């Protein structure tokens, strides 16, 4: 087994562990962590596949650099959305 195969396998494993956790958890933050873990798995598969040949495929790596920034922006928005939901939930339960 080469190291590329090892890391492709690892990436797939991370992706599926994350997927499994998304489906079995209920808490917003826990689910967002799970989505991020499975996203890292996808990045890992892409970058491992990029380093299969003689050189390194720059297009795949550039896509992953873009993906990292988009992932953190989406996570930030989703977390704020989750805490806004929590807040309105709290206010509805205890009107002050």
């Amino acid at each position: 087994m080469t190291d590329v195969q090892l890391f492709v396998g690892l990436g797939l494993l991370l992706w599926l562990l994350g997927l499994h956790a998304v489906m079995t958890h209920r808490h917003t933050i826990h689910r967002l962590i799970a989505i991020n873990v499975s996203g890292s798995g996808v990045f890992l598969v892409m970058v491992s596949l990029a380093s299969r040949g003689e050189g390194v495929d720059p297009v795949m790596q550039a896509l992953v650099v873009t993906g990292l920034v988009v992932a953190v922006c989406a996570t930030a928005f989703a977390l704020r959305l989750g805490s806004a939901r929590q807040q309105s939930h709290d206010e509805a339960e205890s009107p002050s």
Partner: protein
Amino acid sequence: MTADGFFDALLAMLIVSLACGALYSRSLYRAVVFFIALGLSLALVWARLSAPDLALAEAAIGAGLTGVLLLSALKHQAAEPLRPMRPSFQLLMAVLTGVTFLLVLTTVWSMPAGMAQVGQLALNSVNDSGVEHPITAVLLNFRAWDTLLELLVVVLALLGVRQLKLPNDRLPVAWPLLLAWSKLLAPLSLLLGVYLLWRGADAPGGAFQAGALIGSGLLMLKLVGLAPTTPWSHWGIRLLVLLGSFTFLLVAMATDVFGAGWLTYPPGWNKALILLIEVAATASIALSLAMLAGSDHRELNQ
């Protein structure tokens, strides 16, 4: 097994256990800490897979910024008990994902070796792009569309966060050691960020890594209360957030109207245009990421 193979296997085991810790830990706080450690170990994997650009970005974004985001979200969460799903449902999901794993693994392992044609093409024409580093060439020349849309995504995320009612609480007072360290680390991150931006033309680095690094320095200052406020209502802040996308769009429209086509740089202007876009994008990314993670009700909603 060679020393490299041994290290890789150890790294893979470390990552699997950190991921399990992050996903199946009983306490949310522990899960977040595991997740940050996972991000740092992934940076090591990128370095092993000869992707230093990604290692830089992952260490700053994946581990640093996402960690801050998760920890600050944790603070606002009520102590909601972690109710797991029914065991039978969990088992069903485990079987499903296990079958998927085997199917996808056999498919991916049997994929032909060698580089995709588009990657080879990019490597061959780096010299025409205006920069020497292939990844910067792809990001800002060959696939500049992606980067333009990505800058718009950053702006959209910030606008989306603005629409929500943010919690209105004050940060705790920072303890002296943290204050002293931040005063030392924040200028260093600015220095390193500018260096990465400059080096990005012919070595690993570039606008995203630089922006993320400068953004985390700014975020650190915001968290300990040393940074000046960056209220959205100030026109200068809005201008800086939009600067990257505006510059990129202006360049794109100028090349479309006066040149060969949308984002096709005229020969001889490559280097200057790429540098202009990169500087503007770095400033926007740094400020937007710091505001996404560290701004509160007073700065964004008013």
